[in-house]
């Protein structure tokens, strides 16, 4: 007798997106900074795809995400699901549901991991069903594989030209962002940095759009590693920054942003516009680089393999291979950084992050940023990289709550570490910002006393320092790299440098 099977529920499975439809179907994507998204769009165009980033996420997206998916999910899930849903809803009103499901597909990372990141599929699925767009196609990618071959029925080739290109797009925009955040707080003409950054992003887009074809396999990797194409592009960006005059003779607290990947990366509503808010409050923001996340992914892979050394025959060789790639990755980042005269922040060494976090958080605890949250906070504090840490912790985040908890132990051992963990709910901004404000006040005091100590140590008054600075116009350009003299703040380091320069 044949069985009557209960098949009332089947997981979402998208219709194929065929190669022949590439010219009329637009790939939607999001979840990164606007700089990276723009350059990625250009990269897609370079490879013959139609693509566009979703509009910047808003609080309405969060609300819609909660309404359509589930209310208790972590807020990055709500933001991203709502962001997609809002766009699709608007488009449905404009062109109708049939055209929406035919004209667009959505591509996102999410097919991995222990936390909600590995379950994004379900939230998107609920959101699509809620909109009545069940047949809309979305495709999830593993974030840690360079060559995933054809996906989605052949419409998208997740191959080396795309993944390596995307990696370089992230690296280039990361170093640009770092330069931008070290410039804007000190710009003399308000708005000039933003203008130059926009032009620079447009310029980088043009370079990525015109990226030469270098095959589909290893040749692409070798070319990206060895070419001067991107280095030269960033040098041109650097030249644009030369026009920006800055006044760095100021005591501004440096605030390192850490936290969950999405919330710390996307500037804007998902993070309460904290980057802009901190700058308005008189700080220099040390933004979180996406590059560090990829650096961490190398470490995760290496750590997993390392456990098998002595147990599995080829583990040692595999470990050496991953370590080699990891080294090359760091080298590639530093090359791009050097094109901006090493002003962009360096990537913290993963082994150092691991070592610093070890007494408080095991390196193999997976999910979110793992031990990096603790490692980064200690690194920034002990290595004089920032006056204060602002950790953005999404409401409902599984791993972040754990590392915030473990930070209690860190603070017990390092009571002088200024730490502002902010729970980001999307709708409790005033509370979060006022909490941040309290710690920031302390950070400002530290920056000020450090600045005064630098003046005292160098035997200068502020007026004398300014006089000397006025006499050295090169040092008033955004492209002047102020050497570190052991102070956290750029102002204090500049004072010491001025004293040295004039002593020469």
């Amino acid at each position, binding site marked *: *007798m*044949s*069985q*009557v*099977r*209960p*098949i*009332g*529920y*089947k*997981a979402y499975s998208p219709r194929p997106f065929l190669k022949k439809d590439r010219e009329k179907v637009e790939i939607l994507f999001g979840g990164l900074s606007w700089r990276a998204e723009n350059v990625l769009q250009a990269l897609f165009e370079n490879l013959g795809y139609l693509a566009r980033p979703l509009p910047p996420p808003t609080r309405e997206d969060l609300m819609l995400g909660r309404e359509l998916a*589930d209310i*208790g*999910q*972590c807020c990055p899930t709500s933001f991203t699901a709502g962001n997609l849903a809002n766009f699709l809803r608007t488009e449905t009103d404009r062109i109708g549901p049939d055209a929406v499901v035919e004209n667009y597909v959505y591509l996102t990372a999410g*097919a*991995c*991991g*222990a*936390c*909600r990141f*590995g*379950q994004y*599929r*379900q*939230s998107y699925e*609920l959101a699509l069903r809620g909109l009545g767009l069940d047949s809309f196609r979305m495709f999830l990618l593993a974030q840690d594989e360079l060559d995933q071959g054809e996906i989605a029925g052949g419409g998208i080739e997740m191959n080396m030209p795309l993944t390596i290109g995307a990696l370089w797009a992230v690296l280039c925009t990361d170093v640009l962002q770092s330069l931008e955040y070290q410039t804007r707080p000190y710009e003399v003409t308000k708005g000039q940095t933003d203008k130059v950054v926009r032009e620079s992003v447009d310029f980088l887009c043009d370079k990525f759009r015109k990226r030469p074809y270098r095959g589909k396999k290893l040749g692409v990797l070798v070319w990206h590693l060895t070419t001067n194409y991107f280095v030269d592009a960033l040098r041109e960006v650097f030249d644009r920054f030369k026009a920006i005059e800055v006044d760095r003779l100021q005591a501004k607290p440096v605030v390192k942003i850490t936290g969950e990947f999405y919330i710390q990366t996307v500037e804007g509503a998902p993070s309460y516009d904290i980057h802009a808010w901190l700058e308005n409050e008189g700080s220099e923001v040390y933004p979180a680089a996406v590059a560090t996340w990829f650096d961490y992914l190398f470490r995760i892979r290496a750590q997993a393999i390392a*456990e*098998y050394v002595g*147990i599995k025959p080829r583990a040692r060789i595999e470990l050496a291979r991953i370590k080699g790639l990891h080294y090359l990755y760091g080298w590639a980042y530093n090359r791009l950084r050097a094109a901006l005269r090493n002003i962009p922040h360096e990537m913290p060494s993963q082994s150092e992050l691991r070592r610093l976090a070890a007494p*408080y*958080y*095991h390196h*193999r*605890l*997976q*999910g*979110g940023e793992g031990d990096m949250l603790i490692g980064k906070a200690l690194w920034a504090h002990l290595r004089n990289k920032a006056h204060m840490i602002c950790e953005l912790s999404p409401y*409902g*985040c*599984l*791993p972040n*709550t*754990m*590392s*915030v*908890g*473990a*930070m*209690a*132990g*860190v*603070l*017990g051992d390092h009571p002088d570490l200024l730490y502002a963990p902010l729970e980001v709910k999307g709708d409790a901004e005033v509370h979060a910002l006022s909490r941040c404000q309290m710690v920031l006040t302390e950070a400002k005091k530290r920056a000020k006393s450090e600045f005064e100590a630098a003046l005292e140590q160098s035997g200068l008054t502020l007026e004398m320092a300014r006089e000397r600075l006025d006499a050295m116009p090169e040092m008033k350009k955004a492209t002047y790299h102020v050497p570190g003299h052991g102070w956290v703040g750029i102002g204090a380091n500049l004072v010491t440098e001025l004293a040295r320069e004039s002593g020469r």
Partner: protein
Amino acid sequence: MWRTWFGTGHSGSARPRSELRVGIPRTLNVWSTHQFWVAFFAALGLQPSRIVFSSNTSEEQGRNFGRGRGTVDCCYPVKCMSGHYGELVFGQKRKVDILFSPMIRSLPSLLSGHVVDLLSCPRVMAGPESTKAGFIREKDAFAEQSIRYVAPLVCLAEPVLVPRQLHESLADVIPGLTYRETRAAVDAGFAALEDFSNAARAQSRDILRQCARKNDPCILVLARPYHMDPGIGHEIEVDLQACGYPVLWTQYLPTDADVMDWLFGEDIRSGDISSPFDISDVWPSSYSSNTNEIIWGAKVGSRIPWVTCVIRLASYECGMDQPTFSPVQKIVESSGTLFFSFQDLDCTKPAGALKIRVETIRHYVGQHGKRIITRKLAGLGKPCPFTV
């Protein structure tokens, strides 16, 4: 060597093995692995009577031992850990020498080899780290009580890694511990765990056999293992059992080949799934071990005829369970099986509300149980493995 044998001030390393007392917090996935730990330590020469588990979770425990030690605001199964730690550190008549709180990164599972991964929830893995912080932030409470705190990270889903992971963390604590004996103890642990699971599965099969014989309904609980803790799951299943319905837990459903073939054979032959333990048709993001088992349990529960009702337990602020609510309900209800969900379990037992819901469940199962059994039975082939 000297240090290993004679200790360095902590009593944990100063006493012979047979005298060591080990305290283990009865929390999270210790609920599904405790047989492993008991057999492991026993194989190393520790007295089973000296392996102490903290009590079941209770508000009183939290008040007495965990107050002021919490570092996070999250789901109760993690939040309550401070009380368990506190009870082992401060609440033992005979002090423990070692507080052993494993960070279980991945779990042994009946679905091993059929799913993408077998990871624990990130909070299950890291719960010990955030709980520890509450005991060291002002001063080291473990050191003050001369207790060695040991929290090894263990990948129980990758047995070959476990001996090294445990040896590294315990070599300094258990006098003279060698890698070889750790490996043997790990084998003993896994064997004990398997024996226990097999016995529990056999018991479940027995229950189903009785249900089949009498054509009686039973109830299946879909929950995480720690919902067996009366302070976490609030004994909802006990109340239901008191109504006369046998209760099965997902984790210990029978997995014998004849049963699996009876339930899933057709799906395998039609190519929908590749094995009875394949859940990719309903849950492709199968990374989390406990979640995977809940999803699989929903599939099994929707098919076994005598499972006329499935109850779902989930803790308030559980980030892992939320995305599963809708698929689980749809899977269960697709066969007409009754489904009731208790989604916001927290520290306090909402006794009044639970009573009403248990009454409701009793009423529905009583009213519709036989009809559901008949309908579900009609959909399955013969012979029935529970009646032959």
